[in-house]
């Protein structure tokens, strides 16, 4: 696609970087925060930070939906798998640590845990093996939740149910603004979450918190452009909501997806690994879909889990308080091959993204 090629043009990137230097403050440090694992991948993989002046910093917030699933919910999935029920999930989830074991450990002990590319593959498995119970471990932010809603509302097979662990991003962004000494000067809002939710949920950031907010796409040029747009707002002492990713993000989002989400889920408080309990930040299947709620169907409910292992600084990495290389375990006791914390397990975890780039660079 020619558009994609243009959005990766090094020439364009250089020109935006020049503009960034023009508008960036000369001395004062500015710090922007994104909340998306795919943004961190783009930024690290394409070396976006190397295009920025030293006083312009971009940090990664809680943007990895796998990393923030609390251990208690991994424990629930493990318990279900140990009952002889087939647990299906995206590959990222397999090695995420629970309180005592991951789904991978459960699989090694004989549990039926299967990786799928798409939830529809899991539904097909349930149709083919109609004598066996199947659970899909539904993790993800607003980008992923609509697909769970689609399947939950289209009469799934009787032997199929959902372990819903979806989370909503705006409450986590709001939390970051209350973290002392994080001192964020602007948000790079997540493009593919915004494809679904549109712009409205971000309006409070400029209005209530005077926080410049730009919804951004995922090509390196998109991210650079969003940083330029934020810097311009900072320079003009303005705080508004802008949409850099207008080729995909409509102001109203995807109304059909929002409608199906509303029909399938109610919004409840939820625990986030490394963060704690956030009000109105989690989804659960509505009462009329309770027969598809794996927690109710199999009587599984774990209230508290062991989220952070001794020595692991995941909880600080998740909220952008420290960078991965400031964790004493990074690339020593904790590597992509032998991950300790959730941030090193998922391909979108900040530690994992940094580690992969670090390994690739040291091979050159």
């Amino acid at each position, binding site marked *: *696609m020619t*558009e*994609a090629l*243009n*959005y990766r043009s090094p020439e*364009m990137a250089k*020109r*935006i970087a020049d*503009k960034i230097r*023009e508008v960036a403050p000369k001395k004062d440090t500015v710090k922007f925060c994104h909340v*998306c*694992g*795919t943004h961190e991948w783009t930024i690290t993989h394409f070396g976006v930070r190397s295009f920025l002046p030293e006083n312009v910093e971009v940090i990664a917030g809680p*943007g*990895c*939906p*796998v990393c923030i699933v609390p251990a208690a919910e991994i424990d629930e999935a493990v318990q279900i798998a140990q009952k002889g029920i087939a647990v299906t999930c*995206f590959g*990222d989830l397999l090695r995420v640590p629970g309180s005592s074991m991951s789904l991978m450990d459960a699989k090694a002990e004989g549990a039926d845990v299967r990786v799928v*590319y*798409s*939830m*529809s*593959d899991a539904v097909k498995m349930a149709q083919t093996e109609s004598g066996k119970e199947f659970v899909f471990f539904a*993790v*993800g*932010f607003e*980008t*992923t939740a*609509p*697909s769970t809603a*689609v399947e939950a509302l*289209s009469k799934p097979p009787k032997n199929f149910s959902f372990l819903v662990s979806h989370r909503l991003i705006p409450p986590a962004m709001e939390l970051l603004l209350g973290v002392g000494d994080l001192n964020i000067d602007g948000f790079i809002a*997540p493009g*593919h*979450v915004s*494809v*679904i939710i549109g712009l409205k949920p971000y309006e409070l950031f400029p209005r209530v918190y005077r926080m410049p907010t730009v919804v951004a796409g*995922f090509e390196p*040029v998109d991210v650079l*452009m969003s940083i330029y747009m934020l810097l311009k707002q900072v320079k003009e002492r303005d705080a508004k909501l802008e949409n850099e990713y*207008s*080729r*995909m993000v*409509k102001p109203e989002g*995807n109304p*059909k*997806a929002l409608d*199906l989400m509303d029909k399938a889920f109610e919004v409840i408080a939820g625990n986030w690994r490394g963060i704690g309990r956030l009000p109105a930040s989690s989804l659960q299947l509505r009462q009329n879909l309770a027969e598809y709620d794996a927690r109710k169907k199999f009587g599984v409910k774990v209230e508290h889990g062991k989220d952070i292992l001794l020595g692991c600084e995941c909880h600080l990495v998740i909220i952008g308080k420290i960078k991965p290389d400031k964790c004493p375990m990074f690339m020593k006791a904790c590597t992509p091959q032998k991950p300790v914390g959730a941030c090193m397990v*998922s391909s*979108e975890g900040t530690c994992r993204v940094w580690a992969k780039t670090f390994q690739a660079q040291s091979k050159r």
Partner: protein
Amino acid sequence: MCLAIPARVVSVSGDKAQVDFGEKVLREVNVTLVDAKVGEYVLVHAGYAIQKMDQKEALETLSLWNEVLKAGQE
């Protein structure tokens, strides 16, 4: 995980569509969430199309950027 990739719709049958991710990498995706027509580009996330791409907007964005970047150089 919020990774989503544009693909061109090749054929539609009910809530399923065959899409081309480029170089004839074809896959069936669920199109319940979008009103996809053959020839259009959709954004696919984990087997579900979540939005249609606005090609006009994509090209306009690029030309707008060029203008923004030109301004100030003069």
